[in-house]
């Protein structure tokens, strides 16, 4: 079950609504039960693994709280907890990758295992580590009831694809049911009407024999993939935030118009914010961050962060190279203090454009089955090889999906926020504007539901990570 299934909409969601009628102290028990059920629907084989991991992590968190910080035992338990969580991820996600590469390099013949990936294992592991580390550091003080921690780790809206929310944010108590509903609808519309429709183009372009393609065709595919991935993941994150708010649970926003970035470094402060801040807080800063004695150490820290960011996304060399290319460009920006050092408007605009092109090419590698095909795709974006049919096809795709592409491009900018702030300058305009915008969103939601019922549905891309 995913949050855009009919079963979720018409069976699970009414149950979630009903929890808002419960008193706060009872609601968390029901939410924990619903979360367990949600996970069992999506990954029944691994439900017991999730249950065991939740129990162990909560137990370790309480143990850490009882122990004195910096004590030998506390450090041991923290390390044990980290190894436990990383070990699980390693086993299910990277074991075969490591074995295959070892066999390739050393000529050995270790057998690979037929392993399925437990749903949301990477997100769960990162949340668990943040809980243990925050309790160890005293940033989080757990209450008497372990259900709070268990719910934090297993909350249905965040378990499959994040955001990697922190414990203190999770229970921030500044939630609003109406705001939650709004975010849920917004996310649903982003996912179903934009990401899913754009996927029609990307699946076709990325699945095409490159010898039959042209640069225009491949650029269209690459741009649509960048937009699809954004609306897919941002849509999911909005839905997660919305569901949380409706359940009285707070959650950080995960995207801030990432394609409005002025540089590659800034992009990562706007894209998957919860992952970036997790690496900053639990890897980069503990390693010394940029406050190290030598510059070399700072760049080593950056290298480690980007290597881990790459491999976190999947057991494939494409992800590792993708992460390391970000390391190179972000280091370059850090060394030359870019784009601050560019003073002219045109220069900044050019740098912004170059950054977006780089990010776009990076998504091509990210979406390719292997490095070779990724590089061949990028080469094809600049060197013509196909015939006129691909250009004819490009024109048809643009004609048929142009409205979705334009909408996706427009809403990747803060145009809606700007419009809202303009409307709010005048009371009457404000009222009418609210009603009109709400009406449009309602119609879009009903249209999106019709897509789901008509069978035009796709799984979330980030569900794979």
């Amino acid at each position, binding site marked *: *079950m995913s949050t855009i*299934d*009919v*079963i979720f*909409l*018409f*069976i699970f*969601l*009414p149950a979630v*609504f009903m929890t808002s009628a419960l008193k706060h102290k009872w609601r968390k028990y029901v939410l924990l039960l619903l979360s367990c*059920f949600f996970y*069992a*629907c999506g990954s*029944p084989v691994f*439900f*017991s693994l999730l249950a065991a991991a939740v129990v162990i992590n909560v137990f370790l968190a309480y143990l850490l709280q009882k122990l004195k910080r910096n004590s030998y035992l506390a450090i041991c338990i923290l390390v044990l907890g980290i190894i436990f969580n990383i070990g699980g991820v390693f086993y299910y996600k990277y074991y075969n990758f490591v074995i295959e590469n070892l066999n390739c390099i050393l000529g050995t013949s270790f057998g690979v295992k037929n392993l399925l990936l437990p749903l949301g294992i990477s997100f769960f592991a990162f949340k668990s580590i943040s809980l243990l580390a925050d309790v160890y550091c005293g940033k989080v003080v757990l209450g008497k009831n372990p259900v709070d921690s268990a719910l934090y780790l297993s909350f249905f809206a965040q378990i499959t694809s994040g955001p990697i929310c922190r414990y203190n944010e999770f229970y921030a108590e500044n939630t*609003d*049911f*109406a*705001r*939650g*509903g*709004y975010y*849920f*609808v917004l996310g649903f519309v982003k996912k179903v009407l934009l990401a899913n*429709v754009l996927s*029609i183009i990307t699946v076709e372009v990325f699945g095409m024999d490159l010898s039959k393609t042209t640069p225009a065709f491949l650029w269209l595919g690459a741009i649509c993939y960048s937009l699809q991935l954004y609306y897919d993941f941002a849509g999911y994150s909005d839905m997660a935030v919305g569901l949380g708010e409706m359940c009285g649970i707070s959650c950080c926003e995960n995207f801030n118009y990432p394609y409005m970035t002025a540089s590659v470094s800034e992009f990562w402060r706007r894209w998957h914010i919860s992952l970036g801040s997790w690496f900053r807080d639990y890897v980069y800063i503990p390693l010394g961050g940029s406050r190290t004695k030598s510059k070399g150490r700072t760049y080593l820290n950056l290298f480690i962060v980007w290597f881990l960011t790459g491999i976190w996304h999947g057991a494939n060399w494409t992800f590792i190279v993708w992460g390391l290319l970000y390391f190179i460009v972000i280091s370059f920006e850090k060394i030359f203090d870019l784009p601050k050092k560019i003073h002219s408007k045109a220069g900044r605009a050019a740098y912004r454009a170059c950054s977006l092109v780089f990010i776009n090419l990076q998504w091509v590698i990210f979406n390719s089955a292997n490095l070779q095909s990724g590089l061949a795709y990028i080469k094809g974006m600049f060197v013509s090889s196909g015939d006129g*049919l*691909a250009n*004819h*096809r*490009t*024109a*048809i*795709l643009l004609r*048929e*999906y142009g*409205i979705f592409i334009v909408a996706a491009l427009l809403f990747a900018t803060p145009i809606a926020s700007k419009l*809202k702030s303009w*409307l*709010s300058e005048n009371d009457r305009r*404000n*009222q009418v*504007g*609210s*009603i009109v915008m*709400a*009406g449009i*969103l*309602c119609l879009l*939601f*009903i*249209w999106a*539901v*019709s*897509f789901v*019922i*008509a*069978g*035009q549905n796709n799984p979330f891309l980030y569900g794979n990570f």
Partner: protein
Amino acid sequence: MDKANLESKIVTAMLLAVVIVGSIWSKAYLYADEFIQAVMETTMGREETSLTQQEIQKEFLDKMPFKRMMIDLNGTMAQMLNLRELYKNSGGVVLSNGYVSGIYGVTTTNYEIQQIVELKEFLDEKGIQLLYVNEPTKYFDDTVIEKDMGKQTYINANADLLLERMAEADIDYIDLREIYTGLGFDSFDLFYRTDHHWTVRAGKIAAEAIAAELNRKYGYNIDLALYEDERFFVTHYENAWLGEQGRKLGTSFVGMDDFDLILPNYYTDYTVTYTGGNTFAGAFEDVLVRQEIYSSELNSNVYEAPSWHYSYMAGGLSESVVCNNMNLEGKKILVLGDSFDQVTVPFLSLGVSEIQTLVLRNYKESLREYIEEHDIDTVIIAYASIMIGTHDNEDSANYDMFDFS
């Protein structure tokens, strides 16, 4: 009340209304228990006694009272925005002329030709004749799709290659594309807009062409006058039914299809045994066409109505026997067919004494044993071009159609 708050409240009220009304209207509570049970059983690793999650979801969706309304809404929007490929994975693409059509990949035809050649050798040993009939798809020329959709399709190229290799192997065939073109038909005139099948008229013309070929090369004496247009009643139903592809896209997108009921206006007498062994005796219109399928009672909901294409040979084409008691020539034909032949076999039977039919995707026994046991004179393989290459995909429902062992 600030603006953001008002907007959120309106949107959330709508969300609550849609979810709660949708839930009650679709009687979601009836499925909740079943769904929980299915999840529990899978999670506990118990032997499954209930339906799976996917089956329950499908059942829930199929019985959703507002499903049709939502499909129509989706179809209306798709039509307004000209999203012709939105349903390509379920129904097909919509061509500029409004026909729902498929786009097909290339195949080597190696498997198909090898199977046909081996069957031919087997039949030659037994003294049984073989005729291959290539039934077309909605377009006779692959460039139609290239021009309209900018995509390559290979269905006619695949058929051309297979027929070329059959000619080299000295295997007789009829390419119905040539017959129809020769009669001045545009390919789309012969097909439904919302269904992948050809029309009854196309099936009748195909039957006449096969009969002519049997006379010309196979020593049959079929009276071809039996197929003349003036010897048939035609009842035309306007905007009467929705084909299988149209059901995925919605009537608001692709509209409804017309249907021609074609029945002989001369005396006929049949004994027909359908799939499962049910035997019926009577005239063509009584035993070969189930006319109640056109009734208004069965068509109040066009999405749930039975397919009108299948009103011919409605008892099934798998292991059926059609005996024409008016024809005593005595030759037995075995048609290895697909669903296109629902409207070919009845008309072909007008001129021959007995037709047996097999659909190999449903027939799990040995074809060769069947042929030996049933004293067949002529085997006709009558396949739509879409069958060529289906053996490339193990998951295809038609994977075994060219398995003639």
